[in-house]
């Protein structure tokens, strides 16, 4: 089962999406579809497509898909309970936050929350309270999945950290949308200047504004996993095609964040995967916008051959303003916590070698 076929099914329900008619599928193709749907966390989308008559199923296939979707929804409500616990402790500590992705997008941007599955809790916290947020979650019983590059790095330059609560619930605490240069050019104050709310279990939980949610979806779809995953691509199309957007505000924000190329390319990738036509002006962006030098160099660190976390971190130096800050950034990447270097790079010397190779590789690509 190719990604293209799952993408076709995954476009079901999008405004303007081409009518879909798939199936019936034999056992091998059905098994392949379900495995792909589980891997892409797209079981609810497939279930809705089947319920809508766009995916023909046998009685046994329908029962199997329905059972899998039921389990997916069990997981989602448990994660929403965990999200409420996280929000509760953050509020109690007076830490400004925004619930990201998952539950926020499911309830606010899809026809119904049952369309969108998620596998963890994502929360953005204000950078100056980032360390406090980690500490309150650790007091809740959480433990960091990965050690910090160097004490203080994450709160100043990082994307965030993964904290695993008891029962195995994963909470991604974000300082920014992504690591590397595009995460460093976001004006994080913008994200806390405005907000919306989602109602979870009778509690109003702060989330990003509509425009910031779409921007985040673009970052996640383009700069997250490689190759891009289906649900993040669907998120971009879902938000771009549903409801009203302040496109001028969105593009202006992307411009301030030096990330118009991220938005343009993400929307292009989403429209291609979902086989939809985006509304103007988004459609024109995907066609007309040409990345500037900073964007092109930065995109290469995320998308080019030899892309890696090390290259993204090395490329981040170009996004840091001021010589003093640049020196501090480079020093932090090189003079890492000994335990981090030992676990991630096999030692300090190898870490320096990798960083040097990453920077040389980035230079050669320009």
């Amino acid at each position, binding site marked *: 089962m190719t990604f293209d076929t799952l993408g076709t099914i995954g476009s079901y329900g999008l405004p303007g999406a081409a009518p879909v008619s798939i199936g019936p599928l034999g056992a091998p193709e059905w098994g392949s579809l379900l495995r792909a749907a589980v891997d892409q966390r797209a079981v*609810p989308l497939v*279930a809705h497509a089947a*319920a809508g008559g766009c995916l023909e199923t046998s009685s046994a296939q*329908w029962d199997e898909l*329905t*059972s899998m*979707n*039921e389990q997916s*929804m*069990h997981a*989602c*409500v*448990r994660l*929403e*309970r965990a999200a409420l616990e996280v929000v509760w402790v953050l509020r109690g500590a007076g830490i400004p936050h925004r619930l990201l992705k998952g539950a926020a997008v499911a309830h606010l941007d899809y026809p*119904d*929350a*049952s369309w969108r599955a998620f596998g963890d809790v994502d929360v953005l916290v204000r950078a100056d309270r980032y360390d406090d947020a980690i500490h309150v979650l650790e007091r809740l019983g959480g433990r960091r999945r990965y050690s910090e590059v160097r004490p203080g790095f994450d709160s100043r330059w990082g994307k965030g950290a993964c904290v695993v609560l008891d029962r195995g619930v994963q909470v991604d605490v974000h300082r920014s949308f992504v690591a590397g240069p595009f995460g460093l050019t976001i004006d994080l104050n913008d994200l806390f200047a405005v907000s919306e709310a989602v109602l*979870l*279990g*009778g*509690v109003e939980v702060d989330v990003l504004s509509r425009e910031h949610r779409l921007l985040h979806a673009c970052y996640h779809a383009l700069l997250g996993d490689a190759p891009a995953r289906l649900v993040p691509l669907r998120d971009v199309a879902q938000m771009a095609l549903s409801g009203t957007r302040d496109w001028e505000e969105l593009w202006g924000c992307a411009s301030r964040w030096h990330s118009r190329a991220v938005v343009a390319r993400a929307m292009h990738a989403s429209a291609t995967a979902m086989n939809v036509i985006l509304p103007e002006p988004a459609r024109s962006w995907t066609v007309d916008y040409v990345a500037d030098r900073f964007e092109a160099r930065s995109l290469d660190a995320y998308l080019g051959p030899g892309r890696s976390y090390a290259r993204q971190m090395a490329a981040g130096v170009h996004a840091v303003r001021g010589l003093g800050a640049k020196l501090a950034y480079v020093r932090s990447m090189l003079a890492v916590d000994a335990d981090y270097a030992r676990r991630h790079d096999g030692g300090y010397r190898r870490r320096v070698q990798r960083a040097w190779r990453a920077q040389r590789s980035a230079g050669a690509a320009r």
Partner: protein
Amino acid sequence: MHPSESAPKTQRYVRSPGALVREGAFGVVVLGTETSDAVTLSGTAAALWDVLADPQTSTAVVDVLAEQFGLAPERVRPDVDSALEQLVQLGALERRA
């Protein structure tokens, strides 16, 4: 006496605002406020949940489901009372005066 049998017949049942819910072809997945395990309501239980989109007395729920399933109310009442009580215990429903 079953707890719900002692409840005043004018008492209404409402969906708990704190419950976390998803609906689909599987029925209704509900995570009540008093449990860490979600339950799936299907068949008549899902129909009961649907009736409680608005606050209802147990008698009203019985009457609607009896008509829906073509059964006598007295045949339906024990199951409805039991389901309502279980859902209250789970924190999926609340009783309101």
